[in-house]
């Protein structure tokens, strides 16, 4: 999978590495901004209340 990605990318090795770093940063930003807050809704919260 990642080997195929490496083959598909154009340019010399350092251009490919740069593209991968940028791609990884983009994925990380997307996770923090949208994906993790979305998933968080479905994670059972640690309950701090007594049942009233």
């Amino acid at each position: 999978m990642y080997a195929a990605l490496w083959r598909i990318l154009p340019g010399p090795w350092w251009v490919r590495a740069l593209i991968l770093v940028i791609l990884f940063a983009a994925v990380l930003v997307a996770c923090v901004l949208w994906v993790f807050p979305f998933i968080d809704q479905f994670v059972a919260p640690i309950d701090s209340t007594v049942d009233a």
Partner: protein
Amino acid sequence: MTEPRGGRGASKPRRRNVARAVLGVLGELLITAGVGVLLFLGWSLWFNDLVVGNKLHEESLEQAQAWERDEAGAAHGTPQDPPVLGAPDSTERFGLMIVPRWGADYYRPIAEGVGTAAVLNKGQIGHYPKSQMPGAVGNFAVAAHRTSYGKPFNQISSLSVGDHVYVETADGWYLYVFRNLEYVQPTAIGVIAEVPQSAAATPEDRFMTMTSCNPLFSSAERIIAYSVFDRFYPRAGGPPDDIAATVAGVS
């Protein structure tokens, strides 16, 4: 056993290659998922925790400055006869909490209700709607997270007898003095009764109950902190000395 293309000699190695490729992709997906789970934990326990905590500290300062600027405080109220706010709307922020034991930068909003998504997961301290308001005879009961979401009650177990717990409203500062901790089952609603753990008693004193989860990262039990009302500081007279730096935003 028959392959659509290719001779007998070619079929076995090719099938092995396909299997290896599928396993390889599967392995990479699993590793990726593992890294994703670790990143999510880091986000939840550290990154989002810091972001929410800082944001709420800022908003608390802004709220306090707005009250100061608008001179919103009621003119009535004496140290031993504090003003009592009317019931707020659901999820409305009506107060702030300051606990010197937890550092001069501890300044967190108190909102009406204890709904998980609506109040607590925003890092706020939630007020049990059926309990009394600050300064009222009876019990001012609040809940908050002990881990994640800015973890407002993270240090709850560090409170010791005599510690000051301040509740700030537009009117001024209500000083509660910490008495003791209690560890109870999640169903122990007696802790937020008007006289804690004495549902039948007629309230004469002013209590505060704080509830959070116990042990850390678990919902198995609840940790309870009880405080009793000591005195009220009207806004016109300025904050008491031990929280002056917090209110001024110096820390």
